[in-house]
């Protein structure tokens, strides 16, 4: 028997105008978690799509247990024991969680008939076994991004596969969920199985992987043993340069003007009396567990969702924001956490996506200035180091991280006074993250105000002047950067209603 579960070599793959992989190689051992890292657009997802039968390689050799295989399609890959969690969701929004997980493998009552009861029981059993909190009967479309990610994970684990590929499974998860996922992975790995794990979150590589393979610009760089290597070295291999910076920002002086004042914001579903102020030049971080309502706050402020009560003041004067267009006119921009559904026009080119919010800027009397649009797009492609053959490439052909950069560029082009970034670095590599942090800092320094929602606590701590913490639709506290740390943020983020009412009662009695 071979000592490699999976081995590939000499893999090439080109797209029109892009050589995504050249002479790529990789090997995965038994009972191993192999981390695969690289900058945005390095070719990680492409490699995994070759492995799971979605793309056909131009050339290359694939071996499983030392035997050469030619992967003929997704179904064949499944039969070979390969299952994959894609970087982008592949879920049926209208079906339930259980229906999604067992699509194509439904328990039947003989012949064509389905047994919904057995299906739900099977799913419930699976969730119990892998210790995930999901309702088998919930409609997937009603779930948050994080819960949907959990569905994807459960689905991948439900296959009795030997090679599990996870393409940025944690991009939408917070630390607690990441820990759960790591437990799942540890339970999964055995003498017969292995995991390929793609992530841009360097901190978790240490925790989960045995070895780390680094690729850059479609080429294989090196594989290192995790235990023997520092993250700085990995990053160096990845981006080919040092990444500096771990400074934490100072608080913004209280004398700075209040730009945005939100008072008593409530929504029918979740938000309960959310009030806060945002000062000029301030970066206000929003922390909280999945489903705490941070996204909902953002959507309510820009008018994407209806509010049931509460008021918003902009620069001291009350405003009514019925839809995001009004918000944008008032200089209030919102970058959504779900780039595929709510952020990008996948079929349109990079230029159109970047210019979408600012067409007024690029037009005179309704007539567009395409040249100016192109110039601006090119400028941001350089500035954010977006990896694309040209500004005329369709957004869908870009790697996930580069797509995210387009969405960010869109809001940087539009000159807003208040920007709400919801998970802005989702899927962005460490190097580019630093660049985006610098950009955000620059914006704040120019006097723009920023709300930054992030599930990565280090990121929140790294950037925010002040941190607002939410739990179950309520704001449970504010921390200045100086006083904030992971522990006290988590404490506030888990202060559920009972605790709060208890403490309220206590304070009322006092």
């Amino acid at each position: 028997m071979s000592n490699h579960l999976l081995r590939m070599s000499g893999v090439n793959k080109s797209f029109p105008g892009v050589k995504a992989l050249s002479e790529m190689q990789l090997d995965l051992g038994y009972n191993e978690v192999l981390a695969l890292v690289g900058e945005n657009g390095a070719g990680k997802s492409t490699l995994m799509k070759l492995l799971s039968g979605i793309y056909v390689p131009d050339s290359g050799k694939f071996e499983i247990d030392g035997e050469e295989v030619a992967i003929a399609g997704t179904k064949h890959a499944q039969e070979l024991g390969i299952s994959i969690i894609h970087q982008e969701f592949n879920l049926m929004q209208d079906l339930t969680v259980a229906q999604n997980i067992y699509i194509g493998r439904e328990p039947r009552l003989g012949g064509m008939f389905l047994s919904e009861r057995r299906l739900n029981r099977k799913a419930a059993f699976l969730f119990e076994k892998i210790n995930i909190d999901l309702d088998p009967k919930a409609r997937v479309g009603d779930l948050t991004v994080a819960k949907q990610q959990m569905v994807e994970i459960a689905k991948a684990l439900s296959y009795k596969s030997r090679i599990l590929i996870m393409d940025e499974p944690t991009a939408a998860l917070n630390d607690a969920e990441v820990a759960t996922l790591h437990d799942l992975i540890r339970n999964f790995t055995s003498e017969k199985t292995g995991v390929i794990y793609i992530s841009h979150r360097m901190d978790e590589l240490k925790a989960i992987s045995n070895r780390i393979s680094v690729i850059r610009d479609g080429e294989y760089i090196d594989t290192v043993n995790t235990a023997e290597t520092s993250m700085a070295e990995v990053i160096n291999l990845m981006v080919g340069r040092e990444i500096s910076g771990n400074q934490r920002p100072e608080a913004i002086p209280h004398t700075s003007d209040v730009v945005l004042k939100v008072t008593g914001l409530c929504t029918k579903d979740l938000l309960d009396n959310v009030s806060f102020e945002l000062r000029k030049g301030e970066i206000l971080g929003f922390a909280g567990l999945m489903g705490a309502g941070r996204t909902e706050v953002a959507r309510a402020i820009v008018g994407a969702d209806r509010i049931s009560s509460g008021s918003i003041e902009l620069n001291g004067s009350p405003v009514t924001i019925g839809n995001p267009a009004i918000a944008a006119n008032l200089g209030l921009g919102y970058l959504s956490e779900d780039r595929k559904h709510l952020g990008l026009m996948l079929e349109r080119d990079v230029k159109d996506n970047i210019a979408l919010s600012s067409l007024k800027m690029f037009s005179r009397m309704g007539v567009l200035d395409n040249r100016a649009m192109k110039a601006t797009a090119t400028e941001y492609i350089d500035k954010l180091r977006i990896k694309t053959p040209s500004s005329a490439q369709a957004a869908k052909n870009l790697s996930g991280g580069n797509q995210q950069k387009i969405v960010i560029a869109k809001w940087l082009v539009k000159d807003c006074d208040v920007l709400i970034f919801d998970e802005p670095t989702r899927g962005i590599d460490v190097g580019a993250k630093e660049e985006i942090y610098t950009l955000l800092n620059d914006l704040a320094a120019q006097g723009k105000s920023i709300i930054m929602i992030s599930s990565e606590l280090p990121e929140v701590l790294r950037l925010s002047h002040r941190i607002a913490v939410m739990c179950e639709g309520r704001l449970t506290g504010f921390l200045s950067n100086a006083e904030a740390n992971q522990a006290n943020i988590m404490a506030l983020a888990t202060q559920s209603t009972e605790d709060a009412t208890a403490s309220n009662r206590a304070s009322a009695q006092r």
Partner: protein
Amino acid sequence: MATRIRASFQQLLAFASLLALVVFFSVASENFYQAGNLSNILLSTVVTGLLALGTTFVIITGGIDLSIGTGMTLCSVMTAWFMTQLGLPMILGVLAGVAFGALIGSVNGFFVAVLKIPSFIATLAMMMVAAGLALVISGTKPIYTNEVPGFQKIFALGKSIPGLVIPNAVFILFAAAIIAGLILSKTVLGRYTYSIGSNEQATALSGVNVTKWTVLIYTLAGSFTGLAGVIATARLNSAQPAGGMGLELQAIAAVVIGGTSLQGGKGSIIGTVIGALIMSVLTNGLTLMSIPQEWQQVAVGVVIILAVYLDMMRRKKTAK
């Protein structure tokens, strides 16, 4: 559980729309709420209803089927042709008619799933081809089936349940609806119908043979078209080779009024049945009120908008 309750509540409310119309017309015209007239309404629902059943599947996959109107006409011609020219016994003729519908559906499915032609355009082309073939095969003449003993009685106008004025065609519609409902909610085919409509790519990536199932779904839909053709032939005791065009829009309207989303992924058979009934109650009621026909068209248009809008408002409320 919660979703199931919510779903049936919604249908209850669509049903309320229908009831509201019934009450309105009962008040507006004394002749409306009478056994004979209600049976008329049911009978006039049968063909559109059957077409709507089939197309519900197609619409839930996110597709559309414009070929059902003239496809029904072609099936009607074929049924009559099988029985009279080919001399098939009645029951075989009926089966052949249904099978021919399935064939039309499978060709549609082939275009959509294998050749990846958008369903709108594939079925639009089929609409034209079917209209032409119906005329070609019949020699542009009606084909009469009154020589086929019992055909009209068994498949359309006979009243099998003593004491009830409801003709057999209506029972066939309801039986077909029940079967369609079971297929949609209880079988693998039904599940994949929803799944493909929700996210075709994801379904394919999950290892479901989307091409095969899409062809099957269109084939199933086509067999309802075939059945509609059979019933239409039996009712008129003849196949009328011209016409049928326009029926597809009525059927689609019924499906959408019944709450099935044209985006795909959502829908139900009971909704479609209610939608079809709303359409025929409307036509019948307005005629009973002697509203001039040009105003009837206006009224139907307005009611369609209203029905769909109210349905949407309710959904929003119940979804909250």
